[in-house]
C-alpha cells in the first residue's frame, strides 16, 4: 500500500490551503546577456534601450531593475527596432518581413509590455513587372517621423511606403517609387539602371517634411514630402549608411569601400552636390565597408565621428571594430565579437542647446554590451549594471549563497572595485523608469565557475544580476601562454586598437576549469576545485599580498594495483612567491592524484576541514595544520574505465562509430548487389530501383530505438565517482554522544560515514584531526547518491557552521534522535541514527520513471502567515520537472514543469537557493530565475512615465 500513498489530488482541504500559501511556481526574470542579439534601439526621451534577438525576443532595459521582456509569436530574427520616442511604444521588424507594434501599458501601478498590432507589407504582384523578384516589397529600412504618426518603409525594390502608426495601416497614396526620383536624376547617371534597394532613410533634423533617401547604388536625395520633389541630389559610391548633422546643414554618408563623405547643404541653389570631404580613414589599401556612421557635435571640442567597420581588408579584415574620431584623437575599439549596432546617448531636445554633446557610446556586439564614457578623457568603459556576459568564458558550475552577511558583502564589493580602477565612474546613462521592487530583504551571491579558471561573484539579490568580483586561479599555475603579453604588444601599432569588453571564450588550458565551489560566508573562506584535481583553499584578504602557496598532494588510489591513469597531467604550480590583489587569496593547494576532475567538495570552517572527491576516491584535509587526514579509494576492482581517463573514452567512441559506419557500408553494398542487372532494356527502371535502394534507410537505422532492461550491476563504469560530501555534527557511534562526522556518497550507491575527532579550538595546532570509519551503507538499488543531509530531532536540516553561534539560526535539536536523508538518483530515503535503519522512503524512479538530477533542502516561508515556514526537499528530474517533498515524511507536495527535457545543459546547470528560488541556464549567457516559494519572489516591478495621451492620438 505504501507506494500508492502519493495519490494526486487533495484529501485535506486545510493542507491544500497551506500548500498554496507555501508553494507557487513562477519564472520571474532572465539574467545575463540575451543569446544571439540581432538589433538595438534607444528611446532618448524615456532613456530606455531595447535589444532584439534571433529567437524573436524583445528586451527593454532602463535603470537597473527596470526590465521588460516580450516574445514575438513568430520565432524569427528581430532585424530592426525603433522606439516611438516618449510613448513607450516600439516598432519591430522581423526577418519574415512583418512589422509589430509593442506597447508598454500600466496595470496595478506597474508597467508591462505587450504586442498590440502587427502588419505585413503586401506583396504586389504585377506592380513593378511580372518577373520581379518576390523580395521587392522586403523592408530594408524604417524611419519613424518625429511626429510619431507615420513610419516610412524603404524596400528592397527601391520604393518607399508610408505606414500610419496608430493602427499600422498603409497609406497607399503616399508611396514613393523610384521612377518619381529618377526624373530628377541626370541622364548620364540614369542610363537604364535601377537605383537598388533603399539603404537609408533619415528625417531632416529641423524640417520634418524633408527626408534623406539613400539608395544602395550610391544615389542620395533630399526629398520634399509636401512638394513631392527632389531638393538636393548627391552621387556617391555604393552606399552603406547616412546621417544628418544636428543643424541639418551637413550630411555624412558611409560607403562599402571603407570610406565616408561629408556633404554640405548650404549651397541650396545647386541641385547636384559634390562632397566637401571624401576619405577612407584606414586606407590606402582596400578596406571593408563602413556599416554605420554617426556625426555628433560637441560644444567643448570638435565633432565626433563614430563608425563601425572600415578596417583594412587584408591585415585587420577579421576584427570587429568601432572607431571614435574626435579632431585628431582616434580610438579603434576592438571587440571580440561581431558589432550588431551602436548608438550615442546625447542631447536631443532643442531646449538642450544646439549641440549633441554625446555622453556615452553604447555598442551592442554579439556577445556583450559595451558602454564608453565620451565625456571623461581617455573614454573609459562604464560598468554595466545588467546584461552581463555570463559566458565571457564558458560557465562550468554555479553556486548560490543566501543571506550574505553585510561585512562579507562589502569586502567583496571593495575587492571588486579595486580590480578595475580604469573603469569610468559616471552613472549608468540608460536610466529610464523607476524600479518599484522593494529592497531585497537579504543579499545573495551567485558564484559561477568558468572554464578559464575564474570564479565570478554576482549580486543575485535583485532583478539585475550585477558583476561584483572576479577571482582568477590561472595565475597560480604554469600554463602554456601568459595572458597579458599579446595585448600589450598590439598597442604600438596603427590603427590604435583598444581592446574593450570581456568576452573571451578561448581558454588557455581546459584543466583550469572550475568544477566545484564551496564558501563559508561567516569566515570568508572558500574552496575552489578544478578539472585537474586541484583543490584551492582560499581566504579573503583586504590587502594585497605576495606569498608562496604550500602544495600538498594526496593519492586517492592508495596504491591500488592494476590501475594506470591515462588522462591529463596535473597542473604544475608556479614556484616562488606570487603576487595577489586584494580579494580571495589561495593559501594551500591540495592536489588529488590521479589528477581527475574534482566531483564533490565541501568545507567546514569551524573544524578547519575540507573534503573533496574525484572519480577515484575522496580525501579529507586539515587546512589549519596543513596535513591530510584521510584518503579513501572508492574504485570498484572491475572498474577500469575510470582509470583510463577521458581520452580513452573518446577512442572507444571513435571505434564504435567506425564500426557502425562499416555496418552501414556493408548493408549498402549488399543492397546494391541485389539490383537486377539482367535487363539492360529498361535503364530508367534500373536507375529508379537503385535510387530506391539508396534512398531507403540502411539496415542500422531500421531498428527502432530500443532500451535494454538490465538492473544496475556493481561493475558499472565510473561507479567510484564521489558524488557528494557532507559534514554534520550528529550521532554516528552511539545515541548519547554526538560529534563531528563526514559523509561521502558515490555513483554506485555507497555511503561512507566517518566519525571525526576534532580537537577544540585552542588545541588545533597541537592535536591532529582523526577520522574513523563509522558506517558504510550500500544502497541495494545502487543508484548514484546525489545528496546527503542530516535532520535533527525535530526533522529540520542541521544549520551551517557558525550559523547558530552567530544567532542566525535556531540551535538544532540534539535531544531527539537524528536521522539522515540520503537522496539517490532514484529514491529518497530517511534512515535513523545512530543505528541505521530505514524510516521512510520515496521511490521516484519506480513510480515516475524519471531520475533525480538536483536536490536541495529548502525553507519555504508562508505567504499568508509571517512566521510560518516549512522545510521541503526540492528535486529536479531528468525530465526537467520539479517535485517538492515534505521533510522528513517524504510526502509529495507539488510538482511543476520547469525546463524542457531536451535542454540537458539547462537541467545540469540548475541551482536552488535556500529560500525557494533557483537559476538555470537558458542559453550559454543567460540564467532564468524561477521561484518555487509563494513568498520569496524576485521579479521586475517597475514603472515608466509615458507621455502618450490616448491610443490613436500621438504627440505632435
Amino acid at each position, binding site marked *: *500500500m*505504501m*507506494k*500508492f500513498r502519493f495519490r494526486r489530488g487533495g484529501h485535506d482541504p486545510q493542507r491544500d490551503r497551506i500548500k498554496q500559501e507555501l508553494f507557487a511556481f513562477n519564472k520571474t526574470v532572465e539574467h545575463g546577456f540575451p543569446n544571439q542579439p540581432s538589433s538595438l534601439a534607444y528611446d532618448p526621451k524615456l532613456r530606455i534601450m531595447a535589444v532584439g534577438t534571433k529567437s524573436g525576443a524583445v528586451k527593454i532595459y532602463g535603470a537597473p531593475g527596470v526590465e521588460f521582456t516580450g516574445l514575438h509569436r513568430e520565432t524569427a530574427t528581430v532585424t530592426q527596432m525603433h522606439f516611438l520616442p516618449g510613448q513607450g511604444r516600439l516598432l519591430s521588424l522581423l526577418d519574415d518581413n512583418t512589422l509589430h507594434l509593442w506597447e508598454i501599458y500600466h496595470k496595478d501601478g506597474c508597467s508591462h509590455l505587450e504586442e498590440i498590432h502587427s502588419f505585413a507589407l503586401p506583396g504586389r504582384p504585377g506592380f513593378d513587372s511580372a518577373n520581379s523578384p518576390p523580395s521587392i516589397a522586403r523592408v530594408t529600412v524604417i524611419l519613424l517621423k518625429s511626429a510619431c504618426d507615420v513610419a516610412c518603409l524603404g524596400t528592397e525594390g527601391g520604393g518607399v511606403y508610408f505606414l500610419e502608426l496608430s493602427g499600422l495601416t498603409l497609406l497607399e497614396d503616399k508611396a514613393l517609387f523610384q521612377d518619381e526620383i529618377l526624373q530628377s536624376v541626370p541622364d548620364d547617371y540614369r542610363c537604364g539602371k535601377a537605383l537598388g534597394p533603399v539603404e537609408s532613410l533619415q528625417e531632416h533634423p529641423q524640417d520634418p517634411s524633408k527626408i534623406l533617401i539613400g539608395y544602395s547604388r550610391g544615389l542620395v536625395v533630399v526629398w520634399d514630402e509636401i512638394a513631392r520633389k527632389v531638393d538636393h541630389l548627391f552621387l556617391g559610391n555604393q552606399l552603406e549608411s547616412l546621417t544628418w548633422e544636428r543643424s541639418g546643414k551637413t550630411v555624412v554618408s558611409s560607403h562599402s569601400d571603407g570610406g565616408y563623405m561629408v556633404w554640405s547643404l548650404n549651397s541650396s541653389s545647386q541641385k547636384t552636390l559634390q562632397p566637401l570631404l571624401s576619405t577612407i580613414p584606414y586606407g590606402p589599401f582596400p578596406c571593408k565597408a563602413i556599416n554605420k556612421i554617426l556625426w555628433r557635435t560637441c560644444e567643448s571640442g570638435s565633432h565626433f565621428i563614430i563608425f563601425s567597420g572600415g578596417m583594412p581588408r587584408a591585415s585587420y579584415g577579421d576584427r570587429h571594430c568601432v572607431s571614435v574620431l574626435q579632431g585628431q584623437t582616434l580610438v579603434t575599439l576592438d571587440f571580440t565579437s561581431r558589432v550588431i549596432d551602436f548608438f550615442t546617448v546625447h542631447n536631443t531636445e532643442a531646449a538642450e542647446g544646439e549641440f549633441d554633446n554625446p555622453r556615452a557610446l553604447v555598442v551592442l556586439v554579439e556577445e556583450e554590451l559595451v558602454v564608453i564614457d565620451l565625456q571623461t578623457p581617455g573614454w573609459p568603459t562604464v560598468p554595466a549594471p545588467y546584461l552581463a556576459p555570463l559566458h565571457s568564458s564558458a560557465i562550468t558550475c554555479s553556486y548560490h549563497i543566501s543571506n550574505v552577511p553585510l561585512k562579507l558583502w562589502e569586502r567583496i564589493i571593495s575587492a571588486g572595485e579595486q580590480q578595475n580602477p580604469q573603469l569610468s565612474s559616471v552613472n549608468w546613462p540608460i536610466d529610464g523608469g523607476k524600479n518599484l521592487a522593494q529592497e531585497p530583504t537579504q543579499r545573495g551571491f551567485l558564484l559561477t565557475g568558468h572554464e578559464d579558471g575564474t570564479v565570478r561573484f554576482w549580486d543575485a539579490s535583485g532583478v539585475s544580476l550585477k558583476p561584483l568580483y572576479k577571482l582568477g586561479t590561472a595565475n597560480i599555475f604554469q600554463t602554456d601562454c601568459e595572458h597579458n603579453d599579446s595585448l600589450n604588444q598590439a598597442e604600438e601599432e596603427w590603427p590604435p586598437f583598444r581592446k574593450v569588453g570581456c568576452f573571451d571564450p578561448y581558454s588557455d588550458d581546459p584543466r583550469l576549469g572550475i568544477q566545484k565551489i564551496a564558501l563559508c560566508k561567516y569566515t570568508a573562506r572558500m574552496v575552489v576545485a578544478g578539472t585537474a584535481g586541484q583543490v584551492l583553499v582560499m581566504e579573503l584578504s583586504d590587502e594585497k599580498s605576495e606569498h608562496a602557496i604550500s602544495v600538498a598532494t594526496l*593519492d586517492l588510489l*592508495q*596504491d591500488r594495483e592494476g590501475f594506470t591513469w591515462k588522462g591529463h597531467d596535473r597542473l604544475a604550480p608556479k614556484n616562488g612567491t606570487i603576487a595577489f590583489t586584494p580579494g580571495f587569496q589561495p593559501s594551500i593547494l591540495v592536489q588529488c592524484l590521479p589528477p581527475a576532475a574534482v566531483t564533490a567538495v565541501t568545507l567546514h570552517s569551524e573544524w578547519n576541514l575540507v573534503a573533496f572527491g574525484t572519480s577515484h576516491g575522496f580525501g*579529507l584535509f586539515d587546512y589549519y595544520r596543513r596535513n*591530510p*587526514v*584521510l*584518503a579513501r579509494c572508492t574504485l*570498484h*576492482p572491475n572498474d577500469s574505465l575510470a582509470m583510463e581517463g577521458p581520452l580513452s573514452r573518446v577512442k572507444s567512441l571513435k571505434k564504435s562509430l567506425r564500426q557502425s559506419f562499416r555496418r552501414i557500408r556493408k548493408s549498402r553494398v549488399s543492397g546494391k548487389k541485389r539490383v537486377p542487372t539482367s535487363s539492360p532494356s529498361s535503364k530508367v527502371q534500373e536507375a529508379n530501383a537503385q535510387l530506391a535502394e539508396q534512398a531507403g534507410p540502411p539496415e542500422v537505422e531500421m531498428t*527502432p*530505438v*530500443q*532500451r*535494454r*532492461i*538490465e*538492473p*544496475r*550491476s*556493481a561493475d558499472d563504469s565510473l561507479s567510484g565517482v564521489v558524488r557528494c560530501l557532507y559534514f554534520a555534527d550528529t550521532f554516528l*557511534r*552511539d545515541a548519547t554522544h554526538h560529534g563531528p562526522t563526514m559523509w561521502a556518497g558515490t555513483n554506485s550507491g*555507497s555511503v561512507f560515514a566517518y*566519525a571525526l575527532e576534532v580537537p577544540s579550538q585552542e588545541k588545533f595546532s597541537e592535536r591532529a584531526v*582523526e*577520522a*574513523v*570509519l*563509522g*558506517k*558504510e*551503507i*550500500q*544502497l*541495494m*538499488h545502487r*543508484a548514484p547518491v546525489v545528496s546527503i543531509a542530516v535532520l535533527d530531532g525535530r526533522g529540520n536540516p542541521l544549520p551551517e557552521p557558525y550559523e547558530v553561534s552567530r544567532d542566525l539560526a535556531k540551535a538544532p535539536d540534539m535531544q531527539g534522535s537524528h536521522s539522515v536523508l540520503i537522496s539517490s538518483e*532514484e*529514491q529518497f*530515503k530517511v*534512515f535513523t541514527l545512530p*543505528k*541505521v*535503519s*530505514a524510516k521512510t522512503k520515496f*521511490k521516484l*524512479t*519506480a*513510480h*515516475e*520513471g*524519471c*531520475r533525480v538530477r538536483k536536490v536541495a533542502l529548502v525553507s519555504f516561508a508562508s505567504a499568508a502567515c509571517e512566521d510560518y515556514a516549512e522545510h521541503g526537499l526540492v528535486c529536479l528530474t*531528468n*525530465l526537467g520537472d520539479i517535485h517538492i517533498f515534505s521533510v522528513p515524511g517524504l510526502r509529495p507536495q507539488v510538482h511543476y514543469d520547469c525546463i524542457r527535457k531536451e535542454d540537458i545543459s539547462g537541467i545540469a546547470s540548475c541551482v536552488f537557493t535556500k529560500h525557494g528560488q533557483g537559476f538555470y541556464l537558458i542559453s550559454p549567457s543567460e540564467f532564468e530565475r524561477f521561484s518555487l516559494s509563494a513568498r520569496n519572489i524576485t521579479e521586475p516591478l517597475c514603472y515608466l512615465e509615458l507621455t502618450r495621451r490616448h491610443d490613436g492620438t500621438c504627440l505632435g
Partner: protein
Amino acid sequence: MNRAQRGVGGSRGLGTMEVKSKFGAEFRRFSLERSKPGKFEEFYGLLQHVHKIPNVEVLVGYTDIHGDLLPINNDDNYHKAVSTANPLLRIFIQRKEDADYSAFGTDTMTRKKNVLSNVLRPDNHRKKPHVVISMPQDFRPVSSIIDVDILPETHRRVRLYKYGTDKPLGFYIRDGSSVRVTPHGLEKVPGIFISRLVPGGLAQSTGLLAVNDEVLEVNGIEVSGKSLDQVTDMMIANSRNLIITVRPANQRNNIVRNSRTSGSSGQSTDNSLQSYTPHIVQNYHPEEEESDDEDIIIEDSGEPQQIPKAVPTCESLESLTQIELLHESTQNGFIPSSEVNLFHSAGSINMEYEIHDADQKSLEEDGTIITL
C-alpha cells in the same frame, strides 16, 4: 557381518528387505525393515555410513521392476522404492559433482546394455547435456503469472523475481503504436513494446514474455503517456521485483476462463483495464516490496572487534569484497604510503577478528550487519 544380515534377510516374510548398494566399484549389502523404512534423510545417512563417505554429496538411484534407474531424493520416492523392491533393492550411488543425469529415466536399464558402464564412466556416452532437475528445496520462483482472476483475459501480469546479479533480466523495449478503442472509435496511440529478448536471460527463460508484447503497466503504474526512457527507468528501478502487465502479441496461449469463453479481441477489452486498476493495488504486498531493496549497513564504531560475521545475501558478499575496514583507531584512515599494506590484507584480518567475535557476546545486538 554381512552373513548375519543375510540370515535376517532369510526370513523375508517377516518384513525385512535386502539392500544391495553400489558406490563406484564397491558393493555393500544390508537390510531394512520393509514396514518401517524411515525417512529419506536417515536412509541417506545410512548409505553414507556404510560406504564410509560421510561428507560426500551423492545422488541415490534404484532400479525398479522394469529395470529403469530412478532417483531417490525424497521420502515419497524412497517409500515407493522400498515398497516395490522385489526381492532386492538395488541402489546406485553417484557423486553429485560427476553425476550423470542421463542415466536416470525410463528404459535406462534396458536401453543401455549395462547401466554400470554409464555409472562407472560417466563421460562415456554423454552426447547432449541433460537439464538438471534440482531438489525441491532448491527450487525458487523465477517468474509467475499473477492476478489472473482480476485481469481481462487478453492481458497477462507477469512477475519476474531476480536473485542477485548473476542472471540478466534480459529484454529490450521499444516505442510503437497500438490500436485502442476510444469513445471516438479506433485510435492509434503510442505504446511500449518488448522488442527483443536476450538469449538465456530471465525474461526469455520464463516463456511468459515475447517480442511485440505490449507493456501496459509496470508495478501497478500505467505506462501510457510515459516516454521510453521513463519506462526503462521504471523497470530498472523495480528490477528486483518487476511486475509487468502485458498484452501478449500472441493471444492464443491465453488462459481461457469459463465465465468468458467467448474470447473477445484484445482491442475491445482494452478499456476494461481501467475498471480493474483499483484491484491492482490490493495485489501488492508491502512486505514483498520492502524485501526488494534491502540496503546493507556495515557499522564500524572504531572498535576493531566488530567485524561482519555473517552475510545474509549474495549481494552483501559481493559488497563485502570492497570493504576495507580500518582496524586501528589511531590509524586515522590516512595511511602514509609506507604503511599501505594494511589496507590490502583485509581478508586475512577478517579471519582474525572472527575468532575475537566468538567471545564478543554483544555482537548480535550491535548488529554488525543490518539489512533493512
